[in-house]
């Protein structure tokens, strides 16, 4: 039941990877596109130039995939792009040459996601080789995807 008043036509045609929102309506812990990257807003403050000036919004965001920090400042009337963020849990079936085999809800298996680097990747591998059943949380935003977490298999 998509709200008829919401406008999704901007951004990429078809799939709505981002949507516009007035800067002042963004919220801390929400998301925003900064320098073309999907970011989580970790700091948000306003300022103005002179006592009778108009508000500007200062945003600090962290790239959801790379952990890089980005900042931006813009008039609060401006529209910013907000990325559509999705997180899904998939059952881990196998690991092949550094790629995860994940079972989708419809039963298909996808094998296009790399085992993440660092501790998480190691944990996935060790749990897998120990024969534990786990779910892998996959984050997707603006056409990019990555495994970002695990959860004990419960279903």
């Amino acid at each position, binding site marked *: 039941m*998509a709200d008829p008043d919401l406008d999704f036509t901007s951004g990429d045609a078809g799939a709505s990877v981002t949507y516009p929102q007035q800067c*002042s309506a963004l919220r801390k812990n929400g998301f925003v596109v900064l320098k073309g990257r999907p970011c989580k807003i970790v700091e948000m403050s306003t300022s103005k130039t002179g006592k009778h000036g*108009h508000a500007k919004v200062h945003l600090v965001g962290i790239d959801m995939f790379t952990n890089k920090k980005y900042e931006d400042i813009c008039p609060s009337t401006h529209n910013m792009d907000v990325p559509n963020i999705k997180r899904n849990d998939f059952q881990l079936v196998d690991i092949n040459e550094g790629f995860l085999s994940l079972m989708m809800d419809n039963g298909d298996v996808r094998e296009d996601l790399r085992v993440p680097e660092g501790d998480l990747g190691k944990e996935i591998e060790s749990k897998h080789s120990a024969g534990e059943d786990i779910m892998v949380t996959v984050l997707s935003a603006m056409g990019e995807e990555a495994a970002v977490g695990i959860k004990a298999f419960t279903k």
Partner: protein
Amino acid sequence: MMAAAGAPEVISQLESAAKVLMAPPSMVSTEQRQHAEHIFLSFRKSKSPFAVCKHILETSKVDYVLFQAATAIMEAVVREWVLLEKNSIESLRTFLLTYVLQRPNLQKYVREQILLAVAVIVKRGSLDKSINCKSIFHEVSQLISSGNPTVQTLACSILTALLSEFSSSNKTSNIGLSMEFHGSCKRVFQEDDLRQIFVLTMEVLQEFSRRENLNAQMSSVFQRYLALANQVLSWNFLPPNLGRHYIAMFEATQNVMLKPPESWREALLDHRVMDLFFTVHRKIREDSDMAQDSLQCLAQLASMHGPIFPDESAQVTYLAHLVEGLLTMINGIEIEDSEAVGISNIISNLITTFPRSVLTAIPSELFSSFINCLTLLTCSFGRSAALEEVLDKDDMVYMEAYDKLLESWLTLVQEDEHFPRGCFVQPAVQVFNSYIQCHLAAPDGTRNLTANGVASHEEEEINELQEDDRELFSDQLASIGMLGRIAAEHCIPLLTSLLEDRVTRLHGQLQRHQQHLMAASDPDSVDRKVLDDLYEDIHWLILVSGYLLADDPQGETPLIPSEVMEYSIKHTTEVDINTTLQILGSPGEKATSIPGCNRTDSVIRLLSAVLRTSEVESRATRASLIELLSPQMGKDIVWFLRRWAKTYLLVDEKLYSQISMPLSTAFGVDTEGAQWIVGYLLEKVINNLSVWSSEPELANDTVELLVTLVEKRERANIVVQCENWWNLAKQFASRSPPLHLLSSPIQRTLMKALVLGGFANMDSDTKQQYWAEVLHPLQQRFLNLINQENFAQICQEEAVKQEIVATLEALCGIAEATQIDNVGSLFSFLMDFLSSCIGLMEVYQNAPETVNLIIEVFVEVAHKQICYLGETKSMKLYEVCLTLLQVYSKNNLGRKRLDVAAEEDQYQDLLLIMELLTNLLSKEFIDFSDTDEVFRGQEQSSGAGRSVSAADVVLFGVNIVLPLMSQDLLKFPSLCNQYYKLITFICEIFPEKIPQLPEELFKSLMFSLELGMTSMSSEISQLCLEALSPLAEQCAKTQEKDTPLFIATRHFLKLVFDMLVLQKHNTEMTVAAGEALYTLVCLHQAEYSELVETLLSSQRDAVIYQRLADAFNTLTATSTPPTMDRKQKVAFLKSLEEFVANVGGLLCVK
């Protein structure tokens, strides 16, 4: 014992350590430095270091080593006091004093440290009367009469050290004694010795003031004694019979007023004392450091009160003399920058201290000269303060002085019925005019003009943390507003004409810009200077008008100020009410263009001027000139209207002894005027919310105005009759633009206002219709959405997510609207949602930001409603909270996230959960449900079927929180505080539940307590100690041994014992630890004896052993056998304090 024989080795070791410490950082390594520090630390802790210290003082040439030796003596004397012979203490004191006297060239810091040791000895001695304090004064007065500046300086240092030690303020050394000890030392000291010091000081000042030419050395001695005099006059005289807790509070007060006991009468109530300080000030006023001291002495004298005055006439004579001296001083000089604050302190102190009856009893000519002088001074400081602002000075001395004087005016005029009628009107006019002048732009005013008339105009970056002028200058504005009321005849018309003029100019200016824009269409080409000047003028005029016309008391119904009411009544006969209403009702027209405009009620006319400003703003937004407008002015307008509406709208005649006809005709209950203005305000709110969504502060002020309009039933009744209100409600419910552009806090408050409005008086059909348009769409949309078959698949689609978030936000807003008379219906409405929200927790388990918001809804509902809920309803809330926590726990079990925000998200979840638990617990403290009748008739007596209690929910919640509370998370201070507050609450409220906890949970709870006690801040440590007593009492109650809780309390006994006996801690902690220790000792008497035995047997020194054994005996003797009895407990706590004072220090020694 370290013998003098080993001294040379000790000295050389210390001297080389000192060399390391004094070396530049590049020359020594961190390890070397730490090692050197360690050497000094252990040296200071060594047992009976007196002989070796004396030796060091006599032989070493290294200042730092001398300093450390003095410190070691001071610390050891206090530590080993009970072990030392009285005459050896006496000779130690003599040695130190003689030592300093014989070495005039000692480094200052070494000398001060040695004198500090002397002062500490004198003070510690005053407790057991073993040291004769009097002899030291004799010695000092001899030093003073020597006439030798060096010796006199030394005498001054001794007195200063004594004063600091006995003041029991933060300057006092920490010698491990109770506040009570410090208090009784202080009382003895201030009766006699302090006065003696004052007399000595006065003699010196007298002597110096008579001398013609002071050389540099003399003048430095003079300065020291002046500072000493200031210290005496600023003494915080401790009243008799003040309890321990009050002493701590009392000593923390700043701005001490001089209140000496009667015994000081002869020394202080003498004109020559005051004259001397005036003379001294005249002599040294060009030296800014000394002038500060002499003015502060005078300010202290101006604050003198209490039993020192035998009767009121003595007070009158004293005050008259003071005022005369002050006027002579001020009139004869051009005030230096450095004198401004001091002079304003004198004035402010005398106005605050002396009763009105005394102020009016001084000769009337003197009084009016004083008021004249105060008026001129206030205006002049105000102008200088404005200059300081232009120059952006760091040190705003005139601003500070101006604030003080304005505050004094407020004190004066608030009780003006004591003074001759009208005596403050002219002064008020002058001060008011000068304030307005300083805040208006040229040519009417002098804003932003430097001293030579040059305008400065800077645009600085202002961040959101900077307070708005209305708060930043609220004190000044309150005073100016009050003075404006006193001189209402002048001030109200003045504000009106200035504001009307500025608004006309603003209107013209905006029109010119519009034409210009249509021609050039480049907004940047507009020169904003003229506009900004107008905005700034209007800004200040509205602020002053707001403060003049109304107060903003928290939680009370504000009344129309009596001066304003009287002013309006006085002119009623000259007023044409129809013209007045016409001016009010036509904000779009120029006021002066309306015929008969000079026959209007001035109070209404001033409101009309603000409405005209508002109208110009609204029209400009409609003409798409938003870019040119000032959001600040927008804020000022709605701020004013809100303040005004609270006081004047639907004025309740019952609250006033007399009422102005124009005011009651225009704004009274059931008047067209009131209806009109409500409609106007509503229109303003709606306009603002749609055009100013991008200005968070302005939007917030606007929505707060809306809340004000509906939070009182009488106002709400009119509001809901307006069509606009219904439009607003519908528009918001449909989530159509532009309201959905507002930030989430604004949307919440808007929802709150809409719900509040729903409780206005409407016939039942209308009411039903209202709720159908406001709340039901919310429910309907939500249900439609979540009941879709594929909801789980589409839930992460943006439109769906937004709908959910908007609903959750709205629920928070609805909860915020809870009042005692609507909680019944709101609770039922919200409960339906809460159950559905739990379903959402499942669906959105992968969207932490949504989970967070869901928990927040629960937090808000519990926060706002639990205190009103009866048993059945509380139970329902407990149950649903419990389910929420269960689902949260299940979903997070075995989940691990490693993305950027994982820790932050978890931190916020936990914080909210703990807030939720604390809110649920608060029912145990704050419960209005028994006294209200909200649920009467609905509530069944259902105590028997009670299924869930607050304790169950809270403990289950703790079960979730505990395993997640890593030590890393405890580093977030707010989280850590909330956590420990929660577990202390639990132990205090449900001690009986603790033994029933699952083993793991029990263990981690106990571990948390131990961790909090031993390695967190002292505040947390205190919380944990407070949790122990109820736990021990619980054990005592059940009388079961060998339960895990019993064993745990045994462990805590040892911890608390060690903490009290072996570690240094502050006195506040002693109380909390003492209470815990007592209950623990009652429970585990055998273990306690064992602990004492072990401690004693580890002492090899026979003397210390005996002292300790004695101390332990006295400690427990008063309460053998200890039982859980309040009287015994109090006795124990008292002896514990002495115990800690006597042996605490002994055992800290390594």
